[in-house]
């Protein structure tokens, strides 16, 4: 699975996710990636894209829950994302989430050994990481 969240010069956020699903899947199984609110979500405040065990991301409405924690509980993007990944972990699921808020703060959280991830600042500074 791959994903991206961007913040443009007008201050608008977009989140997107694309995947090939799961090896050896059957019965036209679909995971969280194309499900709005589970694998992908964006509003005026934050955008989120997820990767991981799709069934758990769907059941926890992962991406929307990050946004809801920010909207209703006034949590920052990092705390909100960490909490959702922790909740998925408690359910027995695993994976990761990336998020970007309207002020240019990011979160790249996972409960797996690693996640291919990267970010770029408004000045063009690039950060790329793989391992936890």
């Amino acid at each position, binding site marked *: 699975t791959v994903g991206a969240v961007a*913040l443009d010069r007008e201050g608008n956020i977009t989140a997107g996710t694309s995947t090939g699903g799961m090896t050896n899947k059957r019965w036209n199984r679909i995971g969280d990636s*194309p499900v709005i609110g589970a694998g*992908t979500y964006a509003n005026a405040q934050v955008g989120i894209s997820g990767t991981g065990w799709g069934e758990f991301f769907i059941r926890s409405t992962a991406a929307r829950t990050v946004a809801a924690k920010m909207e209703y509980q006034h949590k920052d993007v990092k705390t909100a994302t960490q909490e959702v990944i922790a909740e998925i972990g408690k359910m027995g699921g695993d994976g990761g989430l990336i998020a970007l808020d309207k002020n240019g703060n990011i979160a790249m959280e996972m409960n797996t050994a690693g996640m291919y*991830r990267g970010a770029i600042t408004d000045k063009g500074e690039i950060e*790329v990481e793989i391992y936890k």
Partner: protein
Amino acid sequence: KKYVLVIHGGAGTITKENMTPEKEKAYKDKLTEALKAGYAEIQKGKTSVDAVQSAIVVMENSPLFNAGKGAVFTHEGRNELDASVMYGKNKSAGAVAGVHTIKNPIKAAIAVMQKSEHVMLSGKGAEEFAKEQKLEIVDPKYFWTQDRWNGLQKALEKEKLKKAISQNKKSDYLEIDQKFG
């Protein structure tokens, strides 16, 4: 720091032990290329939708990631793709699921969001819609890669073994660790 773009290329059992320096460099280079592609759109004053599309297309076109070319195989040996997008300004959204011939599913998701009254299209219908929108349609063979094919064969072997063991009423200890997207 103010970030304008963040990306991921999947998560899972990624450790130094199961990575060669060459492979690590290839991943880092491709992630950097995706970031630069998205950043270029923002620098040009384009929308965040354009930035997300450009970044994801780079990763979809690379066999390194499980999306587009390089997608994993279903049990039947097909590559089945899904994608979605959401624009925060007006909460518009689009998605495609279970498609096999759209070269860049993220473009199809964006087309659903911008050019239809729907949010999610699936299967053949989604492919017809993408064709109507003049998106690039490819032979499903385009998505085939040796690595992913080998991955499926391994998973099928494990499944066969697991079935044989459980039929012998022995412990069901073999795990199929191929659940990741």
